[in-house]
């Protein structure tokens, strides 16, 4: 709570507080420094109109001045090739309405790579804003025997230079002192953005070389630990094997480690439901709370552990520098279907959820590559499909071993994941062909030095993910469950009802109407009802089937008792057809809205919904008909 209060307090005083921006190359440790300075007093939102993350926080200097701090997206140059760089350029140029031009800039540079980093510093300096240089990762530089004379560097650059170690306690001390020394800020003489180009890149680099010769013993090229690791990790044979083993371990962990916390959440939700059932009078309110709210929300909340575990791995691999290597290894393979190796990162994220995946696609520079990556991201089996798969597989696929060691159920699950990947590759290939693009696209991917993932940063990032997920559960999913409950409860059944009450409700009428469309692929009206809320959030389909089959348990108990019920009432062909349906599962609405925001066009969201619906219907139809022919 404290953080929220201080933040509100901070917003009130906003006008008098100096606003400082952190700016630097990607991989310079800028965000770690931001976390170190602001701790939990930060607000993560998006820049207006785009889904590029805008991180703002505040802190108080040792001398007592409150400062607002903005963490700008990483950039190699202000001439801006990527959307991220364009944001950085526009903010420091004062061109973004709603984002005032910063009063001062802290340039963060990786001390081990001044040759690359200093060029941006020289560029930014031309803008005439008050500046401070944070020489970051000095600990790594010292370990490598790199000596940098900060005093001389300060003299050459004409700005204060301080050493920082963002990943170490108190590593920001010198920076805080330097900020105090800078305040109050001298009147600035800001120059227009065009002043960046007043000197050519070559001339800027000559200047960097001149400065480096004075301040550092940098020998420009030395073999180091990162190279030794890369000899193995990027090895033509070892590299792909390591990548495959890593991916296998991650998916194992997502299922194995999450089991216990998932059981605990389920037990907690059931307990809450039981307490309410016992203590509330019968009636609509009780039904709404127990069946609608607790049952529905609980069945989604249970996926929090899996999502956090998957993100833990993705964030760790990203933090230590492995993900760009994976992109390197897969570039050729992805290039075969017209994608860039960079697409690997968004696609991997999409196994947790397509939304962060679609957002991660913004690191792809080429607009067409980016669009295709966004379009196929939802074909990666997201964690929301798992409960649906788990329910149907448990009900219909016998639990036995094939070839001695593989479980048949596990094998079916693997096939479903694999079907998603293969179809994504085919869709990508078809889309690239239809765009008629033949020219090659650049990769231009930095392979940063390896370092240990930093636990504090990891914790902050995971907490952000958890907050996003819980907000979603608390808003979209909660609303849906309440709406679904209303639709399935009213109007009540007539006195001479021969069917369960839901048959006569609005949802029942809707389901029976949809059955006309879905009967050819083997779906009955109960499934049709569940499909509707399942479109808003796929995992809700399980909860919805539960409601539809007029059950009042929640969580695992619901799935467990739903299982024999559907095993009785569905044919094997219907079950397989529904599995095929969920491989393509027409988009959850939140993914579609993110796609619309990311691409800036409604037509792409519609195209996505359309092609996925067509694929889902086609795949289910074929599956259903073949299964019927085989007598299933």
């Amino acid at each position, binding site marked *: 709570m404290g953080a929220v209060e201080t933040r509100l307090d901070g917003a009130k005083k906003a006008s008098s507080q100096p606003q400082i921006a952190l700016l630097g190359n990607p991989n310079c440790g800028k965000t770690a420094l931001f976390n170190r300075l602001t701790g939990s007093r930060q607000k993560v939102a998006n820049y207006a109109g785009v889904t590029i993350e805008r991180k703002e926080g505040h802190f108080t200097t040792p001398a007592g001045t409150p400062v607002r701090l903005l963490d700008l997206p990483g950039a190699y140059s202000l001439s801006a090739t990527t959307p991220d760089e364009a944001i950085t350029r526009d903010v420091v140029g004062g061109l973004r309405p709603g984002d005032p031009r910063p009063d001062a800039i802290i340039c963060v540079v990786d001390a081990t*790579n001044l*040759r690359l980093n200093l*060029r941006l510093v020289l560029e930014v300096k031309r803008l005439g804003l008050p500046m401070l240089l944070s020489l970051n990762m000095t600990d790594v530089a010292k370990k490598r025997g790199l000596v940098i004379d900060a005093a001389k560097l300060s003299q050459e650059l004409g700005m204060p230079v301080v050493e920082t170690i963002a990943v170490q306690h108190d590593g920001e001390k010198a920076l805080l002192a330097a900020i105090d020394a800078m305040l109050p800020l001298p009147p600035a003489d800001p120059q227009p953005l065009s002043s960046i180009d007043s000197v050519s890149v070559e001339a800027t680099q000559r200047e960097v070389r001149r400065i480096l010769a004075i301040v550092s013993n940098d020998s420009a090229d030395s073999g180091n630990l990162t190279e030794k690791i890369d*000899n193995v990790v990027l090895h*033509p044979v070892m590299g792909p094997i390591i990548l495959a083993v890593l991916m296998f371990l991650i998916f194992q962990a997502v299922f194995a480690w999450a089991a216990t916390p998932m059981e605990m959440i389920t037990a907690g939700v059931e307990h809450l439901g039981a307490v309410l059932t016992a203590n509330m009078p019968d009636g609509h309110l009780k039904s709404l709370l127990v069946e609608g709210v607790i049952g529905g929300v609980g069945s989604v909340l249970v996926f929090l552990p899996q999502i956090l575990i998957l993100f833990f791995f993705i964030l760790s691999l990203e933090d230590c520098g492995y993900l760009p290597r994976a992109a390197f290894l897969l*570039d050729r393979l992805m*290039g075969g279907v017209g994608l860039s190796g960079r697409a690997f990162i968004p696609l991997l994220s999409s196994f947790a959820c397509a939304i962060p995946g679609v957002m991660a696609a913004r690191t792809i520079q080429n607009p067409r590559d980016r669009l295709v990556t966004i379009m196929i991201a939802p074909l990666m089996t997201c964690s929301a499909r798992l409960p649906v798969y788990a329910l149907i597989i448990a009900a219909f696929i016998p639990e036995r071993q094939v070839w001695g060691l593989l479980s048949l159920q596990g094998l079916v699950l693997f096939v479903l994941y694999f079907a998603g990947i293969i179809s994504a590759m085919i869709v990508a290939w078809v889309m690239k062909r239809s765009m008629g693009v033949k020219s090659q696209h650049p990769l231009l*991917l930095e392979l*940063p030095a390896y370092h240990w993932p930093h636990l504090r940063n990891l914790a902050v990032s995971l907490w952000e993910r958890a907050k996003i997920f819980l907000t979603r559960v608390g808003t979209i999913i909660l609303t849906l469950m309440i709406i679904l409950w209303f639709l399935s409860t009213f109007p009540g059944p007539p006195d001479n009802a021969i069917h369960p009450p839901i048959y006569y409700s609005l949802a029942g009428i809707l389901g029976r109407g949809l059955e006309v469309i879905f009967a050819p692929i083997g779906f009955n009206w109960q499934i049709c009802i569940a499909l509707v809320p399942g479109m808003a959030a796929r995992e809700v389909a399980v909860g919805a089937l539960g409601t539809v089959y007029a059950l009042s348990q929640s969580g695992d108990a619901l799935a467990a008792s739903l299982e024999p019920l559907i095993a009785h009432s569905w044919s094997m062909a219907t079950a397989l057809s529904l599995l095929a349906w969920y491989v393509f599962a027409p988009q959850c609405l939140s993914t579609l809205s993110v796609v619309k925001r990311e691409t800036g066009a409604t037509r792409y969201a519609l195209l996505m919904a359309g092609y996925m619906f067509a694929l889902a219907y086609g795949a289910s139809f074929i599956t259903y008909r073949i299964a019927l022919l085989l007598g299933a």
Partner: protein
Amino acid sequence: MTQAPPQITLDALAVGQSGTVLHITPLPADQVGDGVDLARRLMELGFVPGERIRMLKRGIPGGDPLAIKVGNATFALRRFEAALITIEPLA
């Protein structure tokens, strides 16, 4: 009288070999994709005339993409990008 140094494009450099960047060739206008000035971008990433570079790794299959060390940074480039960079190999 100085002898003209041997020139090759970066994509022809063998793994483990070093060189010095001589110049960057802009892409022909009809191949410039999506308004990205590739030559300028390569320079912004450090492929500036006079810089030392070293070929670290080649991807599989077909030796694409390439991992190239420039200064203390390592970048992955596709072969056609590396072909824009003319270098003088070091013996």
